[in-house]
């Protein structure tokens, strides 16, 4: 029997347990799997988050940015000390990293890059929907997206009825909605009316929440919703501030502050998802990495290759998955940036295929126009 008793209990249904023997596949398909994407806007520096150890060239080019006290991952890579939770999860095979990866975009504009990381396309502004939205639609998963932001992020667009959570600065008396609900008559008011339904059906915790400045509270509520078997299957977080042109620093610099935010969100998700964490994948997304060389302001400029930070019980094992291109001048992209040897969209496509129970090849065609994106599910995730 492939399925351990512990896993089985997580499924939650005693009746099923008592009825005995289930092949792993049907067991897996009844589990709700969560896919959580954390957008890191501004260009996350993969070499700060997951530094390569003992590279003389990096030391030379980044004299003021080199980290002391990195957390140990393996003989080649370390981990930024602010990413504690990833280190903790690494011990349990629940954290992993893809390195030297990026979307296929080399233009170094935040503006275009952020558009492309969300649409998954090649030409900025050409597509009006996001790869995650298209993936959900192709998998016929409707009304299961939750954005932790006020506007619906481009990433989730393309599938109807998404929910979002980003409460107003003060408590809203939602019973006022009851007073006007019946005024929404006729077909042309259907959309608003059904959205009012979504609001009215919200759990109390979502209704009474205020203050979206507190990211902790947002993450806590997201975890609560994701944990619910009938709740959302996809959540999108948005962080910015990774554009550290100055005072990027090492252990305590400006980039570290941002990584600390990622760490906070993942910590809260991990603590509060409970056993649902075992059926969850958390992946970061960014528009590009940063230059190898520090600039005059001890910061870095816009680059190319970066890293994806991953956490969750659906990971195959703790690993730094990479086809390391090296940091010698001729190995760098245009002589200045870490190269990208893995199209990050392959990682996202594989993650969707795992979480949405879909054939990766089908998704690749539906979501990424049949672009050549190898299936990495075997290497990265539990199947």
């Amino acid at each position, binding site marked *: 029997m492939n399925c351990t008793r512990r896993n089985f209990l997580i499924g939650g249904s005693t009746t099923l347990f008592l009825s005995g023997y289930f092949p792993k596949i049907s067991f897996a398909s009844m589990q709700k799997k969560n896919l959580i994407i954390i957008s890191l806007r501004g260009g996350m520096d993969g070499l700060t988050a997951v530094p390569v150890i003992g590279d003389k060239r990096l030391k030379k080019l980044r004299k*003021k940015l080199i980290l002391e006290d990195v957390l140990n991952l393996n003989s080649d890579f370390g981990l930024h000390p602010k990413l504690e939770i990833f280190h903790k999860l690494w011990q349990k095979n629940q954290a992993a990293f893809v390195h030297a990866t990026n979307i296929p975009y080399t233009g170094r*504009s935040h*503006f*275009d890059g952020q*558009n492309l990381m969300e649409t998954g396309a090649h*030409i*900025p*502004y050409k597509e009006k929907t996001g790869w995650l939205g298209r993936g959900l639609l192709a998998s016929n998963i409707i009304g299961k997206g939750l954005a932790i932001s*006020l*506007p*619906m992020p*481009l990433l989730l667009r393309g599938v109807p009825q*998404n*929910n*979002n*959570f*980003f*409460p*107003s*600065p*003060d*408590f*809203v*008396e*939602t019973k*006022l*909605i009851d*007073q*006007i609900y019946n*005024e*929404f*008559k006729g077909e*042309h*008011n259907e*959309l*608003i009316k059904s*959205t*009012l339904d*979504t*609001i009215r059906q*919200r759990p109390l915790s979502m209704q009474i929440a205020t203050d979206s400045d507190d990211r902790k509270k947002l993450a806590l509520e997201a975890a609560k919703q994701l944990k619910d078997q009938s709740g959302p299957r996809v959540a999108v977080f948005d962080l910015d501030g990774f554009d550290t*042109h*100055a*005072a990027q*620093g090492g252990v*305590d*610099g*400006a980039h570290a502050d941002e990584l600390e935010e990622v760490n906070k969100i993942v910590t809260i998700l991990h603590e509060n998802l409970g056993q649902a964490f075992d059926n969850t994948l958390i992946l970061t997304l960014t528009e590009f990495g940063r230059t190898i060389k520090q600039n*005059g*302001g*001890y*910061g870095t400029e816009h680059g190319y290759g970066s890293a994806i930070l991953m956490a969750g019980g659906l990971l195959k094992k703790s690993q730094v998955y990479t086809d390391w291109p090296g940091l010698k001048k001729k190995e760098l992209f245009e002589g200045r940036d870490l190269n990208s040897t893995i199209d990050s969209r392959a990682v996202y496509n594989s993650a969707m295929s795992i979480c949405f129970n879909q054939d990766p090849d089908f998704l690749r065609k539906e979501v990424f126009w049949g672009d050549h994106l190898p299936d990495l599910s075997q290497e990265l995730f539990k199947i």
Partner: protein
Amino acid sequence: MSLNFYRRVAFGLSPHEKPYKDPLNWATNQLDAIPDFLWPGTIPTEKELRKKYGEWVYGDREVLRKKFKNDKYAYRKAKDELRIKTGERYFELNEHAIRHFQTKYSKQPVFERFWLFWGNHFAISEKDFLAEFSTGPYQREIIRPNMVKTFEEMVQSVTTSWCMIHHLDNSESFGPNSKKGMEWRETINENHARELLELHTVSPNAGYTQEDVIQLAYIMTGWAHKWDRKNLETGDIWFDQEMHQKGDKIVLRIKYKNDGKRELAKVIHDLATHPICIKFVSTKLCRHFITDEPTEEMINPVIEAWNKSNGSLIEIHKAVIQQAYKYNEITHKFHPPEIWLMQLSRMFDLNVPLSFEKMNYSFKLKPNNRQRQLSWILREIGHSPYRAKQPNGWSDLEVDWVSPELLLRRFWFASVELPMLVKSENRSHDFILSCLKNNFEDHKNMASLIHQFRFGTSDKDLGRKYGVICNLPEILKV
């Protein structure tokens, strides 16, 4: 004619206005001349603000980053001081005040609605410090004066404006066979060319190819800001022959002979008068004023007016208003948050924006909470006008504005914030009833929904009344 026409094409009627005898005439008469700005406070020029932009960027990039390379705390502190000194956190607030004062008090509110439309059609999205220093003056100085000219003239001005060129990176676009392109091994940046085709003129309906985009980008090479060490990217726009791609170009099957600076005006002429462009923009206008999915019957008279007047925006605007009038009773249009707020401010005479005396800024302290209030509200209701995420601007479709949080934010504003913006003399229940009567046929039903709160005048009671009223289908839509 229903009273909702005043909201369909404008911002509703203020307590000092009464319904007009001939609403169609009232509306079309507003479009021949550009109304002055009414804001009694400071209205800085685009050039002044661009200079401030330069001081901010230069001060930060060239001075502070080097000075505080090792100390992020000291760097942040110095940066905050520079923000105050250059007005980096102030000018956008002032622009919002200018804009909302205008829509609240303008005698030509219909003109103002078109102003908002064009500002969004030729959108400047959130990039660098454009929202802080540039988008407001761009809409005042580039968009507005062209609203009594032709569409073609509007496109010419927009395309060579500093703001749009910076926004879409045309300064970084080099003809690969130009002098500088060869020397620096640089090539084109297609952004601006693509958006000129896709968003500003012919739209993808024209069936242009990637090669068309490239060829148009070649034509546009050279239109750039004049760079120097001190102003960085904030120099004036000029045509740099040394960046310009040499040779003939072909866009949408039309050949443009090698003619340097003059090529751009020629191609814009052809794009702005292209039948597909005319149809695309006419459709957008109808979508804005009539309904999300306008029909051919709605759009065709606008196209006719366009053709007949050779693209005169005055005539086009009039045709749009006539169509909006014609279809007023049988169509519905959802209003995005900012227009909703402007309408509430006008109909209920709210204290929005803050008085100009209180908006004065000393460049010594950071803007206070009162000064930030309007911009904060706009952000919280999800519609900070100069901060669209993409160059296609804010959506005009209901489906993009209806999400749980975006609807809740309107309840939040109306029930929590709005009561604090009600003038002291307007707190009575009768005042609300009179405003409703002034603007809605169905005012009795609306009033009945707040009847139970009629005796209350506290902020909380007002919050309940406005929370209900402002979110009724009659107010969210026309």
